[in-house]
């Protein structure tokens, strides 16, 4: 069965690069300015910009300009899509046993 969802293609393309995964590592700890990101990873501002564009297109990262500083942060939308894809491709029983876990948590938290 082929999976011809262009959004998923973009997501996996974005995640297929080690520098872009390093950007996600940094941002998962805290929002960071573009220039600090370039410093942290030892790459040029131009390179960071290109990576951020690819990460932004699939909603893994969002950027926002506050004053003169452009700040990047993790965008939950891309991760939700990734999570949905993973759950849909996991075995039906893995999902059931996870739901069992959630149900027991709810029942025992009262």
């Amino acid at each position, binding site marked *: *069965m082929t999976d011809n969802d262009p959004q998923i293609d973009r997501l996996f393309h974005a995640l297929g690069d080690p520098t872009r995964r390093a950007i996600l590592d940094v941002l998962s700890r805290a929002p960071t300015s573009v220039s600090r990101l370039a410093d942290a990873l030892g790459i040029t501002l131009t390179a960071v910009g290109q990576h951020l564009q690819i990460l932004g297109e699939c909603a893994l990262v969002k950027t926002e300009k506050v004053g003169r500083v452009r700040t990047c942060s993790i965008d939950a939308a891309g991760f939700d899509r990734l999570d949905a*894809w993973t759950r849909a*491709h996991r075995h039906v*029983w893995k999902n059931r*046993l996870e*739901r069992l876990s959630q*149900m*027991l948590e709810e029942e025992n938290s009262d």
Partner: protein
Amino acid sequence: MEPSTVHNTFVIEQLYPYPPETLYAAFSDPARKRRWFADSEERVAEQYDLDFRIGGLEHVIYRMGTNTPFPGIALTTVGTVQDIIPNQRVVTSQTMSLGDRRISSALITVEFLPNAAGTDLVFTHQAAFYEGSGGPEMREQGWRGIFGRLEKALAAQK
């Protein structure tokens, strides 16, 4: 379609931070078993019945959605409880059908092994998948379709 059979066994072990009694109750009480076994956020069973005693039947019916390759067709599972040792073991046999075609038959053994951290649930699924079942993946098709529809609905809101 040429008859063909694929045999498959898989085991899932999962630790739950609860005593075996808590897990056993989630398997033996029909209302609670339905919650995690038959219904999910993505899909709700049209019918679920469980007569929890040795020889008792478990019956699940899903109706395939319009976004699946089999719109309106029933996906039915009929199971028989084969063995029960309270708080220790539950064994079920079950056959799944799509419309009136049988697509798989399985023997499912669930064991509850208590330890210091809670209970290890050992789940063993042994099955014969028949032609047209597409193996375990076929069951997921409906789910993928539903996720696809959700994506579109969310995208349309933007």
